[in-house]
Structure formats: C-alpha cells, structure tokens
C-alpha cells in the first residue's frame, strides 16, 4: 500500500506522525479524516485510531487539527496553486497522485444557483485508493458471449465494491487477461474514481487499451468517445440521470458494448427505476451482476442472464 503520496500532501508535523504510525495500521488504512479543531482519525476496515507524535494512538489522545493544517494540506495538494484546482474544489473532491481522493467540506459560495467555490474548509477526508487486481476474474468469463462483451449492468449498494469491480473488469478486458482476447475500451470517468487520473495520467491500472475521458459528464463522454475513439466497449460508473440512459441507448444502437454500474439492492431495485426497467425489458442489457458485501466487499451474489429469463449463471 502506497500512502507516501498522502504523506507528501501533509504538513511536516503530521507527516512525521504518519511516519511513526505502525505498519499494520498503515497497511490497512482506508480513510484519514481531518476536521477543524477535532482529533485526526484514521479509519481501517475494522477500527479507528487517533494520530499523535508517537504515531497511532487512542482517539482521545489524537492531535487536534488546526486551520493552518487544513489550509496547508490544500496548498500542498494543489502545489500552492489553488486556482488550478478551482473546479475540483467546487466539486468537493480532488484526486491526488496515487489515485487517492481528497474530499473537502466548508462554507459553499453559491452564485447563480450553482456552487462557485468552497471556502473556510472545515474538514478533509482522504480516501485511500485501493485496487483489487484480479477481483473480476470470476465475472469476466460470464459476460463474454459469441466473441463479444455482453452489455452488462453491475448492481450493488454503496461500499460493496462496484467501482473496484468495474475497474478490474476494464483492466482485465483491456489486457485480454481472462478471455485470451482484448478489447479497446472507452472509459468515461466522471468522478475520476476509476482511472483516478492525476495530471492526465491514470493512477490505477486500467490496461493498455483503455482511453479515459476524465472528469467528463457521462452523457457527453459516451457521445464523444463514440465519435472520436471507436471503442469496442464503453464503461461508465453510476448511471442514474435521464441523459445517461439516453446516451447509453445511443451507444447500444451503434453496436458498442456497455458496462456500467448503478446503486441498488438486487434486481427488484433495478426494476423500480422506470427508465432502467424499460431498458431491461427491451433486453438492452445481456447480463446483470449483483454484488454484496457478504461475506466480504465485492462478493458476487449473482450473475443474471437477462435473455434467459434472468437465470443465474454465475
């Protein structure tokens, strides 16, 4: 696990504290939460720790973050160039080197009914990027039929690993790892979560045949990719808006395979979304992959064959 790029954006005294943190905690850290005038909290999958001069410690003894700490982190993240990350600040998150995501909250400045910026930053949440290479190897064989990739919908509640699975499917297909056949993939990474581009370079392994449209709204991105990169597969994360469905349908018409994810608990949840139900009824999706966090995050609950009466095939 590389959290060195996270240490790089910390003020020196917090960097030293992280250096003194036990290897075990560093290895399993999922989030570092830094709130103004509150103790710094490190979260792993199973526990929470504070951070002090001796490294990890009980939260009650944790270092209390100051305004200067929060400002310093933002300055370091932006390379002392807050103007260069103005759009990201407006969105509320910034992707840093290593693919880690830094979420920020504070006082929003609204102008013409849209957020102009966030000032008086009151909390920063650093989510450690975690690739799970190979997590899709039990899925990929089931979404391949007649030498092409089936249009696939990945369904799961939050925090069940759908983005991680999607990323690994993209990597797998891009390298041609499981199928002995590779595909040109167009990825619309609206929230920079899948490829996690930093300075235009994907920080996660998404394969050698993947073209990324970073920070681009899905509906525009799908159309742009169709026009410019002639992909065999288009991948998008978290569809939901009407324009997303329309863009997906446009792509399906021209014969491009689609792999996308959506929030939901099982098939019934999908069928409750009118626009999605219509697409499923028209059999525009060939496979529906349902994920859960039992027994662990990213567990495949079922892979359904839509054309075969939703039979479970995996």
């Amino acid at each position, binding site marked *: 696990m590389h959290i060195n790029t996270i240490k*790089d954006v910390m003020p020196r005294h917090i960097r030293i504290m992280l250096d003194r943190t036990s290897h075990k905690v560093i290895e399993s850290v999922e989030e570092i939460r830094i709130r103004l005038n509150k103790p710094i909290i490190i979260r792993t999958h199973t526990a929470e720790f504070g951070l002090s001069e001796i490294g990890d410690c009980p939260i009650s003894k944790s270092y209390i973050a100051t305004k200067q700490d929060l400002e310093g982190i933002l300055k*370091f993240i932006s390379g002392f160039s807050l103007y260069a990350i103005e759009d990201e600040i407006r969105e509320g998150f910034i992707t840093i080197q290593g693919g880690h995501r830094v979420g920020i909250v504070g006082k929003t400045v609204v102008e013409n009914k849209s957020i102009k910026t966030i000032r008086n930053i009151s909390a920063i949440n650093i989510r450690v990027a975690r690739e799970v290479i190979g997590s899709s190897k039990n899925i990929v064989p089931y979404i391949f039929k007649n030498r092409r990739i089936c249009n696939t919908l990945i369904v799961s509640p939050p925090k069940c690993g759908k983005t991680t699975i999607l990323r690994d499917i993209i990597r797998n297909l891009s390298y041609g790892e499981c199928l002995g056949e590779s595909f040109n993939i167009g990825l619309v990474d609206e929230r920079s979560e899948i490829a996690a581009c930093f300075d235009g370079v994907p920080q996660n392994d998404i394969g050698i045949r993947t073209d990324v449209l970073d920070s681009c709204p899905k509906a525009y991105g799908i159309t742009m990719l169709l026009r410019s990169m002639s992909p065999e597969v288009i991948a998008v994360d978290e569809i939901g808006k009407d324009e997303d469905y329309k863009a997906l349908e446009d792509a399906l018409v021209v014969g491009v395979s689609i792999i996308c994810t959506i929030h939901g608990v099982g098939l019934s949840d999908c069928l409750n979304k009118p626009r999605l139900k219509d697409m499923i009824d028209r059999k525009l999706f060939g496979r529906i992959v349902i994920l859960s966090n039992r027994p662990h995050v990213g567990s495949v609950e079922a892979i359904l064959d839509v054309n075969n009466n939703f039979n479970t095939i995996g």
Partner: protein
Amino acid sequence: MGVLGLVLILSSCTLAGFLYDNYENKRILQLEELIKGLEILKSEIDYKLTPLIYALEEVADITGFGVDKLFNIFAYKLAQKDEVNTMKMWKQSIVEVSGSLHLKEDDYKILESFGSVAGHIDRELQKNNIDWVISKLRRKADEATIRYEKQSKLYKGIGILVGLSIVIVLI
C-alpha cells in the same frame, strides 16, 4: 614607484565610476527581466492554469540577469513543502537572491507584495496583484532609464576627473 601609485589611483577612480554606471545599468536590465517574468507568470496562471511551481520554473527558464535565480529559488522552496506560508517563502527567496541582484530597497518592497496572493484560488485577484507589481516596477524601470541616460556619462566622467584631481594634487 610614485608613478605606479598615481596610475593605480587614476585607474581605481575611473573603475569606480564605470562600476557605479554598470550597477545602474544592471538594475534596469533586472527590472526589465522581472517585468517580463511576471508578465509570463500572469499568463501561465490566468490562461493556462499552470501550477505555480511549474509556472515559476518556466519563467526561470526564459529570464536571465540573475532574475531567473529568484524564480528558481521560490519554486524550489514551494516544492520542498516544508513551509505553508507562501509570503514567507517568497520573502526568503528575495533575501537569498538579493546579494546577486542590483535592485534597490524600494524595488524589493514592491516585489515582496507578489508573495501575498501567490497561488491564491482567485485568479482575478492574482492577476490584479501581478499587474500592480508590474506597473510599479515599470515606473521604477522608466525612472531609472531616464536617470541613467542623463547621468551615465557623468558617472564615468566623474570617476576619471576625481582620479585626475587626486593625481594632480599629489604631483
């Protein structure tokens, strides 16, 4: 031996005149380079949204006469991430480089104000700040140029004349 001493006095005074003249000339050149550098920096920030460190390195590459050192040192300090206060780092950079620059106290004071909003989220504010610094430096450079054109020959002449006067008195 006496003749050698007189020659030395004459050449020293002449040289002093030329050096003073050269100092003023270098100040003008450095002010012009600073103005050029800040203009480029403004465009890098305002149009290209280039991160400050890269923008400073870019500016350092295309400026000279010792001014490049100032931008390079500032970029280096920012990249070190040992300090959060941008103004402090800019002031330190000015102090470190001041030995090799030929600027006056007033010039440094104007320059210092660039550090107050360097890297700020508001591009318009930065642009206005850089414009303000440029306009002040421009005025200083123009004044220095007019003065230099008027007094360049005078400085050199005074050096020679003082030297000759001392030599004559000693003879």
